[in-house]
């Protein structure tokens, strides 16, 4: 009794499927997937990007209803001649170097430790990744408390009683970089760990048979094989560090902590120099692209080896 019923239902299902297949060709299905994404990208990315490029050649101020005047390259020229803007870029470069170098050292070091067989490795890895799951502004506020000279734990741990961190022009940037390292070293650790676990154990076994030293193994096996993934981590972190805003804005307001993203924010949304800030945004974009390009070329060279 059940056999005919099953056959009947199969028979009725087949024509329905073929109807649907006839209704939409492969090309149509592809378009349904691709076109919304392309439209989204054009409307929300490409169009604003081009629109702001246009504004960067004008004296437009979004807070005023004045007619917009074309000023050519004046905004770019003035920005590149502005000593304050250069100071912001130099400061940002220092911050990127401190922050990314710290993240690589701490993150890669943690990955090397976690690559061994240790108890509760999974729990430890999860715990170490918690900082990067937190909101950046919250991390900034949280570390502001840790740096408090009177009762913050940082001074207690380092035996630096009463040391002022965030209002001292000499150490404020370092203090922010340490916070960024704490937050993002786990990201470097994660990618490094992926690279380390992909190294075939046979290579280490061969090195052990040849009685290679630990340094030799690290220098000629571990590092070269992890390098591509490590470099990807560095590319991502450099781009992000270059754009750092939240942590630095929340933690300190020193002249010595005014990164280029903060300068851009002030210019665009406090001073409402819209045209000029668009030009600065393009200069930042070009700088990030240039740095990324160098990294990518180096990455390709590494892969080619």
């Amino acid at each position, binding site marked *: 009794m059940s056999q005919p019923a099953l056959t009947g239902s199969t028979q009725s299902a087949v024509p329905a499927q073929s109807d649907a297949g006839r209704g939409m060709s492969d090309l149509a299905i592809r378009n349904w997937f691709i076109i919304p994404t392309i439209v989204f990208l054009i409307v929300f990315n490409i169009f604003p990007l081009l629109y702001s490029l246009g504004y960067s050649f004008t004296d437009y101020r979004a807070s005023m209803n004045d007619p917009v005047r074309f000023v050519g390259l004046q905004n770019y020229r003035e920005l590149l001649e502005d000593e304050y803007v250069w100071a912001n870029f130099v400061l940002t470069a220092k911050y990127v170097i401190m922050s990314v170098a710290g993240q690589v050292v701490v993150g890669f070091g943690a990955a090397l430790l976690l690559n061994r067989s240790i108890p509760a490795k999974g729990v430890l890895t999860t715990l170490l990744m918690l900082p990067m799951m937190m909101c950046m502004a919250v991390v900034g506020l949280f570390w502001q408390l840790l740096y408090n000279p009177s009762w913050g734990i940082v001074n207690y741990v380092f035996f630096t009683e009463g040391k002022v961190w965030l209002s001292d022009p000499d150490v404020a940037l370092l203090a922010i970089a340490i916070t960024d390292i704490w937050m993002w070293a786990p990201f470097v650790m994660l990618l490094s760990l992926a690279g380390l676990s992909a190294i075939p154990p046979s290579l280490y076994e061969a090195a052990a048979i040849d009685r290679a030293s630990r340094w030799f193994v690290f220098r000629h096996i571990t590092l070269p094989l992890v390098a591509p993934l490590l470099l990807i981590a560095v590319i991502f972190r450099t781009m992000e560090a270059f754009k750092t805003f939240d942590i630095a804005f929340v933690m300190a307001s020193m002249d010595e902590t005014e990164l280029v993203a903060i300068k851009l924010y002030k210019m665009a949304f406090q001073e*409402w120099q819209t045209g000029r800030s668009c030009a600065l945004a393009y200069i930042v974009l070009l700088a990030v692209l240039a740095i990324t390009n160098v990294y990518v070329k180096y990455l390709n060279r590494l892969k080619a080896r």
Partner: protein
Amino acid sequence: MLKALSRIVAAAALLGLAQVAAAQGQLTILWAQWDPANYLQELVKDYEKQTGTKVVVETTPWPDFQNKAFKEFTAKGSAYDMVVGDSQWLGAGSTGGHYVELTEFFKKNKVAEVMAPATVAGYAEYPGKSGKYWAIPLEGDATGFSYRKDWFEDPKEKAAFKAKYGYELDVPKTWKELGDIAEFFHRPKEKRYGISVYTDNSYDALAMGIENVIFSYGGDLGDYATYKVGGIINSKENIEALKFYKRLYGYTPPDWGKTFFQEANQGITEGLVAMSMNFFAFFPALANPTTNKYAKVTGYFASPKGPTGKQFAALGGQGISVVSYSKNKEQSMKFLEWFIREDVQKKWADLGGYTCNAAILKSDAFRKATPYNEAFYQSMFMVKDFWAVPEYAELLTAANKRWHSFVVGGKGTADEAANGLAKDWEATFKKYGRAK
């Protein structure tokens, strides 16, 4: 699929129509998120009872306030019918076409005669002395001080102070006395500090704190009519004031380099400082025993006099303006007519709002209503403000950069900071064609 789409479009259109209809029966006011906005929301319930028009006070956190308001202006949005804007916004609000001119309203309702003169000049008139008005003074405010009465009145402290400085320890009458008292109570080993002053340079906190001293020292920010700043912003008086502010910063608790109203109150509520500079609008929290365990021993005083007897306070507070893009401009005007009525102003003051109505301010009932009202009353007749030109934010950024570097960062000298700022401001005014 077409049917489904058309249903969605129809539903969205109906929703839009419903929202427009709802918006026409209500007025929306944008203000910052703080206690006075809650008092205003309480006050406007009376307006709804009397007229049937609902008034909503929409608030946004202080750091986002200016940004949110100007984004709405830029989009020519009608989400807000009125905005309680900072005094510095007057230039951008008026010349940018975002505010409705209220000069006729002022004349018809004699607003300039009813409100305290300094509040009319500070919150409503632009350009200065032009007779053109763009806002109704709503929330008066100025910088003042809170202090620990129990520390000041302690006989041992009084004796030690007199022995050291040669005069009685009391509420300071001059900035010099204030400096001495801050120095006297500054005892880092006891985790007790002299004073809290504004140092945050992300908006106007530091500038308000420093101009407070500059004005009383006989200095100024520039010539508001000609936009001349050279020789004024870097005058001898201003340089002395700047040095004095740096001296005060030396008596603040550690890491006090990014402080505004929250930290200023925290200095008192945590028993850290002897005196704390803050806007009066934040004093209610200090008088409340649930938020300040030292409420009973906290006193208040107005900004003291400078070396030549001049006495000023930095203007805070805001006026209420009608947004040009509002669809309810007439209703908004009717609301303003209601708001300036003396009985409404009286209720506004009773609720905790700082009225700008001169008669109410001068009344004994107002001056004795809270422990800080007397000091507020004194301050509102000696207030002076920062530039209100459309490019005020650029002037503020430059001032923050120069002054913060010197006061908090300890870089360079007061002369260098003042001369550098004069150069920056001259360049800004030149860029906008104001100065030759």
